[in-house]
């Protein structure tokens, strides 16, 4: 099968690669670009664990053909963090406010949904910096979590908005 020449900006860096045109954006991120923060939970757009920002908008990367993202800007959970955290819990200033709030408010248990939640929450707050609780709940309705019951995730996003 002829390869597709894909050009992407990923986490601020220009990337060029030859891919199988059948690959999804999630496949390319995880397997070609070694970015495994976006998780594969369902491959059908139902769980939201693979959420990334495409030109600033949240998308389930398992549903998008990578070729359709040619020339676009992708932000993954790895790109949210400016520098590695210090040893221990949440080094000062090194986590994005959404990430820090999720850590501190107990919004993370198994953590498999977390990267998707982080990206969905960042997109939500970019769009609506002072959301109501109802708006946060609706904004995260596409991100399934089996561990937390969502309460602490919602509290974390609300507190990140206030920060």
């Amino acid at each position, binding site marked *: 099968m002829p390869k597709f020449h894909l050009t992407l900006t990923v986490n601020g860096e220009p990337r060029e690669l030859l891919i199988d045109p059948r690959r999804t954006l999630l496949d390319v991120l995880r397997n070609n670009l070694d970015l495994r923060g976006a998780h594969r939970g369902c491959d059908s757009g139902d769980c939201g664990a693979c959420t990334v920002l495409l030109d600033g908008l949240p998308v389930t990367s398992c549903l998008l053909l990578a070729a359709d993202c040619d020339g676009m800007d992708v932000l993954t959970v790895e790109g949210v963090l400016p520098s590695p955290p210090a040893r221990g819990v949440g080094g000062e200033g090194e986590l994005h406010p959404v990430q820090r709030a*999720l850590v501190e408010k107990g919004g993370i*248990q198994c953590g498999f949904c977390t990267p998707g939640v982080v990206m969905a929450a960042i997109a939500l707050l970019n769009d609506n910096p002072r959301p109501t609780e109802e708006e946060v709940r609706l904004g*995260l309705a596409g991100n399934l979590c*089996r561990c937390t019951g969502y309460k602490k995730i919602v509290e974390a996003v609300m507190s990140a908005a206030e920060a």
Partner: protein
Amino acid sequence: MSAVIGQRLPKLDAPDKATGRAVYGHDVRLPGMLHGRILYSQHPRARVVGVDASRAAKLAGVKAIVTAADNPATKFGYGKDNTPLKGDLVRSLRDEVAAVAAVDADIAEEALELIHVEYEPLEAVLDAEAALKADAPLVHPERGTNLFTQYDYSHGDPAKTGEAGSQVIVEDDFELPYVAHAAMETSVVVASFDHRGHLTLYSTTQIPFLLQRDLAEALGLDGSDIRIIQTAIGGAFGRGLDIYPFEPIAALLARKSGKPVRVSFSRYEEFLAAPVRQPAKVRIRAGAKRDGTLTFRDVYALLDIGAYVSWGSVTPLVMMETTASLYRVPRVRFRADCVYTNNPITGAVRGYGNPQSTFFVETAMDRLAEALGLDPIEFRVRNANRPNEDTPQGLKITSCGLKECLEAVAARADKGTEGTQGTEGTRDYGSFRQFPQVPLFPKKRGIGFASTLNVGGGARIYRSDGCGATVKVDDFGHVSLITGSTEIGQGSETVLAQIVAEVLGVKIEDVTVLNSDTDVKPWDVGVHASRTTFIAGNAAHLAAMDARRQIFETASELLKAPPEKLVAGDGRIFVRADGNQQSATPRGRFAVSNHHSVDLAKVARARHFREGGKVIIGEGWYDPPTSLVDKETYKGNISATYGFGAQMAEVEVDTETGKVRVLRLVCANDVGRAINPMAVEGQIEGGVQMGLGYALTEELIVKDGRVLNPDFLDYRLFTAADMPEIETIIVETDDPQGPFGAKGVGEMGGTPTAAAIANAIYDAVGVRLTTVPMTPERVLKGLMELKETKEMAA
């Protein structure tokens, strides 16, 4: 107040998880790793005439194909009835017939399509009742029956004196569905052999040490040749409590290809091939005296365990415990039959029989209260378990806050205020109706209650319920806890670090927890039965105390003070002032001066930088003072302590559509002592999400042995937008045996939820549902039947 115990500390692994750094099973990539895919049966029951994989073998990129011919001679699993791949007979649609390892997942998938399997379909047994008929086809013909096991427990005499001594008796039939774990991470394993033929398995198992043994059996290897490394685990909820065929299949493929092999499930495959909660049909009879004292309970449960035995067949033990020991019941009989069918294999799911049994027991409690004209809370409190009282089943209840939990949720029930007890909501029907203020189909509100009893101090299911721990202090004063227990997201790592930090007087940041490698960590039975805080916590506490003894021995020399006068805190060892026997954190309570204290790191160095020196390594092993249940009577004290809880649900039922909306859930739980209240709340809130799904939306629909809704669009989990307001009340009873008074909480959150919601629905509209999930269709059907009954009566 302690600086560590009782604090809302964030999980130690949370920053890595928030930044995408945590390495899950699906993230593992080994050099030369192949992708394994499994071919499943096309029929719920069939004779396999032949498997022809010759075309698949010729496909470029295919490195190994395994079929039943590659199986070792032994069978594995709880019932010793399973093999990695199935040969002559397939017994369910999730039976593995062949598997392929290829250089990428696409080639592996293509290869599966090239494998030709010829079947001769046979009549299948797809219902537990049908399976018990004399002429039913046999799932495992060599057994001669489809009945795998029976339970028959009793205390007192419910049939005679129980019934005779009752002024009210209620009876109901329940039908309980298949439920999936629906962990966000699907099943995954990576198997790799080294040059010695030793197997390393990267796994999300909950039972690393038992899996070693089970795999050895399944593969014909020695257990000592198997190393299990647990990756970050993306949810487990009981799924990882047994060996399942995909694990030995990955190893067989790895051995045959000579390369590491990963088998990872798609979500579809997860719904199809992972174990599920067993469906059951249950009849309960229960009675009480006019004064509100319980007289008896009599339960029969028929469980469909599927085509192979896993932990699904042991859940009656927990159903039995709830039936016999939730509230004080003088006479109880509990019988259960576990039956093979050609349906999906069933395993352990969080709560393990308890959400089911709490649903039927607490429904009966509500009906008794109503029949007696008693307040549901008053009735429950009157019969509540009490501290330091053995149950007739032999449970030695020590700390018990059930009464406090019931009273706490009752206080939040706001009974009689706006919106409860069948109050009609408002609905605008437009001006065309003659009397718009009287809606035709009002929304009605109601409240309901349920309690729960759970093991809280381990559960002796195996001969050992133990856990080992080692605490090491390095030259820089940094502490490593090496524990046998497993972190599955629940936060055990953090809670155990808190326990060790408290004993050694260091900050939690100074503790690293190592818990993921069977070559490193000491034995543990596994992460199940809400046991980790209690059992692994006690083990870590013992190891930390042992390390502290060694630290004090050396510090005693350095400080020229006897060890019994020393106290650890702020990363230092202090000499306690005379007359002060308190042992809490020293700052502010003792004269703190460097002349009277020494840095922990200095103690560690001083202990080994000398001739004849030693390193600080504390050891702990904790196995609780409990017993296996008696094989004949099923009596015995299975857990060192028990957790209790109560929930209050407030619902709104739309009488037009039958839709139930939960407005509020108040959860009170006796956790002994909350070592980390934020983590306790997280366990309860997460349990509630599962309990809500069990109550209202989650059902794996299985027809003719086939799962009809294998995706999240049709298998509905509660989302952030669906969740009601949850209020969590922590009741502390300071358990005498728990580490710092703590007992287990992991499974309690979701156990009483379905029962509380069912009772609230009844309170709202008078419909008594005995099937979950309580879907709009079922509620509406109940409303229609109620209307017919009323019209007939009129």
